[in-house]
């Protein structure tokens, strides 16, 4: 399979803030259904874990960013609980595609001298409170003005809203349900080696295409899981990150909420089987100074199996239209050339609106993925690189990762991270 052509990367000069900022700490709660606690409590749990991971205390964190959709707590409560005095905070509206976008904002505000270290969190009871699938509270809200053009037609949940893109890709390129089901097969394989994953069962292509239809072309097993959890990442300048407890994941390039034209209703501007990655790739790769062929591990958002495929295709990991071949070729599985979502992602590990995929790639770059491998005398995992069920999920010699975040077909975010060269 050949890679599609992307803009010629300029590797002769430092672009923008390439290699100057890093993720220095990551943390999460458990992934559950029925957390029995508030999003405020979940958020403090995840942030404390990230601070411990970085070896930081409340005095070391002075910035906070969060994202939510009328379903979460705010920075002010959480910072107060943890004894963090803020020099900067902002709580942003949004879901998927926010993680990378907020990392970009964090870099900007630190660069502006507004603060030194930013904790970015997403806390949600996505199963037991405001359900991510759109049933319950989300389906009961009054429908006003602009929303009438879709919600009045029973066109509301994420799956329903994205389906015309997914279906049209099948029509335009001959993509089959079996090819796309391979994404679930791969991610479930990865999750079976992830003690934290909500779903650890391995699935076959037949399991996926024989599961019940939610809305065509999506079967139940093409859709992500709904869970209760919080996640956090800490962003700081690279020199500061090097003083932290764990190796930094160095940020090479970031793209935030890059959009297709006519984002008020993106289906007006085709091809509708092309997603925002088509535009985002022209920022991501030149700014990173690398191309898709250089990437060792991908984190292509998996709200649905199709989402992963469409993004890998439009960011240039394969030619346009060959996404079905790419995801069903074994490349995206552990043991393949470029595994995707090695934690199991949203399809299996838990739903976090993108942040668990950045956490996973941070750990992949550290060589410290938390699988079931034994812990050595140095306190670190002794990875076997044996990917059978219940085994390892650390990829060998990870130098570069790419996260491809997704809000919807018309909006995406992305980030390239590197292992610290020092």
């Amino acid at each position, binding site marked *: 399979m050949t890679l599609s052509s992307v803009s010629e990367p300029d590797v002769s000069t430092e672009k923008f803030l390439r290699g100057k900022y890093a993720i220095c700490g990551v943390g999460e709660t458990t992934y559950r259904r029925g957390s029995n606690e508030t999003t405020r409590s979940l958020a403090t749990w995840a942030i404390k874990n990230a601070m411990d991971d970085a070896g930081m205390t409340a005095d070391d964190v002075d910035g906070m960013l969060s994202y939510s959709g009328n379903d979460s707590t705010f920075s002010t409560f959480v910072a107060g609980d943890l004894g963090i005095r803020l020099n900067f905070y902002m709580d942003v509206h949004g879901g998927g595609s926010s993680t990378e976008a907020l990392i970009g904002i964090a870099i900007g505000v630190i660069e502006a001298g507004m603060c030194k270290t930013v904790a970015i969190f997403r806390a949600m009871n996505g199963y037991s409170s405001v359900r991510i699938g759109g049933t319950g509270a989300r389906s009961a809200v009054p*429908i006003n003005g602009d929303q*009438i053009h879709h919600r*009045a037609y029973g066109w509301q949940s994420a799956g329903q809203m994205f389906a015309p893109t997914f279906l049209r890709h099948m029509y335009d390129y001959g993509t089959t349900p079996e090819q796309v089901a391979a994404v679930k097969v791969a991610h479930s394989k990865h999750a079976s080696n992830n003690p934290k994953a909500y779903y650890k069962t391995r699935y076959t292509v037949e399991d996926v295409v024989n599961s019940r239809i939610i809305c*065509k072309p999506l079967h139940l097993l093409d859709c992500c899981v709904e869970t209760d959890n919080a996640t956090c990442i800490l962003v700081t300048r690279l020199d500061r990150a090097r003083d932290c407890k764990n190796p930094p994941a160095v940020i090479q390039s970031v793209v935030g909420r890059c959009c297709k034209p006519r984002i008020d209703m993106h289906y007006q501007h085709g091809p509708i089987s092309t997603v925002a990655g088509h535009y985002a790739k022209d920022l991501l790769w030149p700014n990173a100074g690398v191309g898709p062929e250089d990437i060792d591990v991908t984190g292509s958002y998996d709200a649905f199996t199709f989402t992963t495929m469409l993004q890998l295709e439009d960011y240039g990991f394969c030619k346009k239209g060959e996404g079905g071949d790419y995801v069903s070729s074994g490349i995206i599985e552990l043991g393949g050339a470029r595994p995707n979502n090695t934690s199991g992602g949203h399809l299996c590990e838990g739903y976090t609106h993108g942040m668990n995929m950045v956490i996973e790639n941070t750990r992949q770059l550290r060589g410290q993925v938390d699988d079931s491998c034994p812990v050595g005398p140095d306190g670190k995992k002794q990875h076997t690189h044996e990917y059978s069920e219940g085994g390892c999920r650390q990829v060998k010699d990870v130098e570069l990762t790419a996260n491809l975040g997704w809000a919807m077909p018309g909006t995406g975010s992305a980030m390239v991270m590197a292992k610290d060269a020092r």
Partner: protein
Amino acid sequence: MPISGEYMGMTLTIDDLDGENLDFFRYCSERDFRLQRGKQSGLLRYPPTTACPWTSDRESEWVSVEAKGTVHSYVEVHHPIQPAFKEKVPYMILLVDLDTQKGEPTADEALRVAGNLVTADGEFASPEMIKSVGIGTRVKMVFVDVTDEFALPQWTIDEDADQPDEPWRYPQE
């Protein structure tokens, strides 16, 4: 005055400041499908917006448009989200390329208008009718009243049009 009505168990409201949507849905209740046409560009747009997507021009006029077209893509819902749709499954949401302005101003652009597949009388389509519709099916607009001054545009099979031998449908029925 705002317009508000109950439809499929949902309260649909158009705020009194929302002139664009008030105009659009009022014309629909008069069985007149109108879209805004930008003064400078001369281009139609959907859904209603407050400026022209091609010129940023804020001046526009409402123009009657022939509401016929071809199914560009669709959703076939088997697991509903909104409670009242439970009785209607499976139901179909069509994304229809209007004949008017198709491929303008660039080849990949079209006025892609959403709506459910309904009968000529505006009732939700039967499972049998759904199975006859896919990408390529020719459809025409019908209107379903929400209140006296507010109707929703919907789509039905255009019986007078030349239909494809076999419209493209998702392979699993």
